[in-house]
């Protein structure tokens, strides 16, 4: 039955299983859409103001607090921006170690998102908890992989959350040969068997992702040498109706030319747009931009999962995350093998050669991230700018809503189905909006 004359009222306050707070509001009266909004009521946190007056050696530590999930990415974008401003060129070993920890973060975050936050929708469960009796072994494998990602990052960065060793000019402390050898062995003995087993579940679920195509602009880091993750230029890719690509690249210094942040009444977070009136960042955007550079193992998996560029279905961002998790695992193996082959060498931090302005980018699990700083002659920060991926995606989520709601009405979806599909859509973007509290709220038993 069609919903041509139906009344629909969806008001999801704080979508669950996303990082932070976002609301879904849809009002339909007599089949007419009166309101259809993705609202983000987050509070500003003023990190850009907090770094003013701080020495360049302190800035990365402060901004890594922007996010506990992507703190490696914020640290890397920060030190890269500072290094650009200070005329620092890091050594190949530093770049390799940074790339290695970047893959650790990507692996860790994608495992959590796909298996703990997105998979329950596909299995018809409200969260991972009811899945313990029915899918206990899979949950255990997922947790082992998550734990491995955490420990992988800790070995390189000192700790995964808010890493301590990554500073402008290099690393304050290096992983030992023994640590890298142990880590390398665990890829073979633990990670690859668990990943293989979990992929069977993902294969079984692949048909359950909703069908919804909406072509948009896809922006990601692009690196001539490898699948853009740690480094590269900014690349925008759009596809015509025949799937033919149009690409444009921008140097990182021009990040404002393609982010074009603006304000909308329904959201306290800024929106962004470039050539189209919205664009997408994240795993699917990276896949659409750089799929030819995936590791062969990840490319083969994408084929098996039916993920093919150009992919216009935002729900399949979770599938792209699975493909990227496998890519990151194999890239981790490659990078560790190269580091062990070349030997880890103690290196002095590279010193500044100037004090000015610079920009840095890196890919974090949710998309491309930009940091930009200015320093005075004493190395004190005089201004900063951070553009996070989730904010770049807000406009695209809104445009998806505007296309999806009429489609669901035409398909005769019930209010409950519509609500679930809109929530799933938001979750597919894996948004990282703001932080909630972590305090314990308890009552004593006696």
């Amino acid at each position, binding site marked *: 039955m069609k919903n041509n004359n139906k009344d629909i009222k969806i008001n999801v*306050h*704080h*979508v*669950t*299983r*996303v*990082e*932070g*707070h976002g609301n879904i509001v849809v009002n339909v009266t007599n089949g007419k859409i009166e309101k259809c909004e993705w609202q983000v009521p987050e*509070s500003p*946190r*003023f990190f850009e103001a*907090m770094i003013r007056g701080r020495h360049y050696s302190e800035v990365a530590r402060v901004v890594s*607090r922007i*996010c*506990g*999930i992507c703190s490696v990415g914020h640290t890397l974008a920060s030190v890269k921006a500072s290094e650009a401003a200070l005329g620092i060129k890091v050594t190949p070993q530093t770049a390799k170690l940074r790339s290695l920890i970047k893959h650790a973060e990507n692996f860790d975050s994608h495992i*959590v998102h796909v298996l*703990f*936050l997105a998979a329950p929708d596909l299995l018809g469960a*409200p*969260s*991972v*908890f009811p899945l*313990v009796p029915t899918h*206990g072994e899979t*949950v*255990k494998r997922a*947790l082992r992989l*998550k*734990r491995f990602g*955490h*420990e992988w990052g800790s070995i390189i960065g000192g*700790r*995964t*959350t*808010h890493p301590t060793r990554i500073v402008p000019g290099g690393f304050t402390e290096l992983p030992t040969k023994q640590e890298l050898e142990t880590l390398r062995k665990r890829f073979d003995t633990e990670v690859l068997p668990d990943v293989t087993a979990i992929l069977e579940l993902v294969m079984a679920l692949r048909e359950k992702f909703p069908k919804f195509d909406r072509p948009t602009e896809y922006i990601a880091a692009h690196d001539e040498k490898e699948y853009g993750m740690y480094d590269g230029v900014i690349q925008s890719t759009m596809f015509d109706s025949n799937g033919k690509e149009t690409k444009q690249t921008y140097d990182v210094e021009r990040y404002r030319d393609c982010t074009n942040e603006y304000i909308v009444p329904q959201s306290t977070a800024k929106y962004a747009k470039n050539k189209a009136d919205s664009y997408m960042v994240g795993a699917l955007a990276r896949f659409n931009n750089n799929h030819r550079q995936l590791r062969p193992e990840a490319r083969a998996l994408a084929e098996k999962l039916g993920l093919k560029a150009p992919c216009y279905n935002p729900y399949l961002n979770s599938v792209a995350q699975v493909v990227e998790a496998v890519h990151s695992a194999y890239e981790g193996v490659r990078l560790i093998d190269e580091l062990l082959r070349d030997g880890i060498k103690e290196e002095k931090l590279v010193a500044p050669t100037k004090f000015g302005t610079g920009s840095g980018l890196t890919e974090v699990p949710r998309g491309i991230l930009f940091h930009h700083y200015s320093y005075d002659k004493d190395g004190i920060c005089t201004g900063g700018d951070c553009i996070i991926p989730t904010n770049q995606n807000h406009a695209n989520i809104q445009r998806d809503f505007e296309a999806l709601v009429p489609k669901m009405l035409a398909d005769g979806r019930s209010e409950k189905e519509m609500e679930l599909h809109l929530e799933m859509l938001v979750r597919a973007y894996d948004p*990282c909006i*703001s*932080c*909630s*509290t*972590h*305090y*314990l*709220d*308890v*009552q*004593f*038993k*006696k």
Partner: protein
Amino acid sequence: MKSRYLVGIGNYSMGDDGIGLRIAEHIAQAKLNSDFDVIEIGNHGLDLLSYLNEDVEKMLWVDCVPTGRAPGETIFFAPEDVESVKKLSGSEGVSPTTHEGDMLQILNLARSLGQHIPKIRVMGIEPEIVAPQMVLSKTLEARFPELVNEAIRQIRDESW
């Protein structure tokens, strides 16, 4: 020898909710932890699961716990002594997102999966302000040194 962990829990961006994290960070930076390890559990609540194993003797969780006491006052208890009444987003009340944390829920997940649970003591600190701000309240800031000392004393306490 088995490990002892001082676990700082919280969110820097929410005023006194970050007290546990700040205490842990201070202890680690000042290298006051020669006989125990310090970890921070901010947004990655699931990371706790990495530390629940047979190699761990005990954990002290340092966290913000509002119970109606005067701001800065402490309360000590074991997770088994309490039940969570925290309202998480979603009508189901179950939301193990990496940002929205309830460590008791994570602990229950570990139990249901058969993970080893070491001895855990919670050092709960009464907040004054839990709201978006990147600094502690003046009250907790003033009591910060004594809270750091108390946390160290608790993890070194051999009576538990």
